[in-house]
């Protein structure tokens, strides 16, 4: 009866409908949309505080987004745990440095992949804060509320992403 929990993959439609229903409950119970990227700004400020002290908290950006553990930070922590649980239940968990699509184009070097991932991380972290949200906050939660800011952002995420991916894999790779 619980076999579906040990399946490696579910239909994307089942997963999408599940996330949609989950969003009903986050609005109803927590009065918040599912979103992730603000947490990385808060974490970044908290880590900076370890090195540079309390003056970090006075930065205008961290006045706007206070350096506290909030609902969304717990949500992001939960995503790590939920994904781990799902992967362990289905036997899909594994330590992996280099994804296969990357390996077939650029080889199996963990260092190269990690450096490019770091660079990509810097760009997406910067862009997410610039746009005021990410694939979950704008791409799912914002578009489902029919927010103009989110529809523009989501379309631009994919325009930038599709062009860049083609550049990386069709021209360089």
């Amino acid at each position, binding site marked *: 009866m619980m076999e579906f929990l040990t399946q490696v993959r579910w239909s994307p439609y089942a997963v999408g409908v599940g996330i949609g229903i989950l969003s009903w409950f986050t609005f109803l119970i927590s009065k918040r949309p599912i979103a992730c990227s603000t947490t990385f700004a808060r*974490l970044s400020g908290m880590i900076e505080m370890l090195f540079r002290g309390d003056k970090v908290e006075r*930065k205008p950006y961290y006045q706007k987004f206070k350096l506290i553990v909030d609902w969304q*930070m717990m949500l992001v922590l939960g995503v790590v745990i939920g994904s781990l649980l799902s992967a362990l239940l289905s036997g899909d968990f594994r330590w992996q440095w280099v994804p296969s699509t990357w390996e077939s184009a650029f080889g199996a070097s963990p260092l190269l992949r990690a450096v490019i991932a770091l660079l990509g991380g810097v760009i997406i972290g910067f862009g997410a804060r610039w746009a005021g949200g990410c694939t979950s906050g704008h791409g799912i939660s914002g578009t489902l509320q029919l927010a103009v800011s989110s529809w523009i952002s989501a379309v631009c995420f994919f325009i930038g992403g599709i062009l860049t991916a083609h550049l990386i894999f069709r021209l360089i790779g």
Partner: protein
Amino acid sequence: MQTKNLETKRSGDRSTLLWGLAFGILFGFLLQKGGATKYDVIIGQLLLTDFTILKLMLSAVLTGMIGIYAMKSLGWVQLNPKSGSAGMNIIGGLIFGVGFAVLGYCPGTIAGAIGNGYLDATVGGLAGILIGAGLFAALYPRLSQGILKKGDFGDLTLPQLFKIKEWLVVVPVAVLIFLLLYWLEQAGL
């Protein structure tokens, strides 16, 4: 503004934090089952060879939208749309897109990728996102009065933009999403 105050007040509330954790566990579980924690699936979407991510997102938007607007009509929930501007959402969105393709994860799915054991996400990507977000925080005072204000439209929604009743937008958007998904399946994508 009001939501900001609420957030500050609620931030220390244990039950709020626990709900966040519980919702996150379910969200992460679903993302992993959908394959969205995987670089290959995300890059496949951006290379237009694997439409899993689009199918997942559009069915989430379709389901979420109908439910949220129904509950709003009943007075059960309030919307919480993000404010925006052309300078924020177009430029920020395009920068995000470039990073999306270079990293192959996004801020939500990277948390799932970490849980899945993917070390390029844990060691490279996570550190990068933290640095990128910190860089933005450092530049924010200069950006906030300039480019981020260009073409400001506030927390506008599509029904407000078109000045029509909400369901006159919800129903056509739902139909369009449904037709797009149907077409993707018919095309064998």
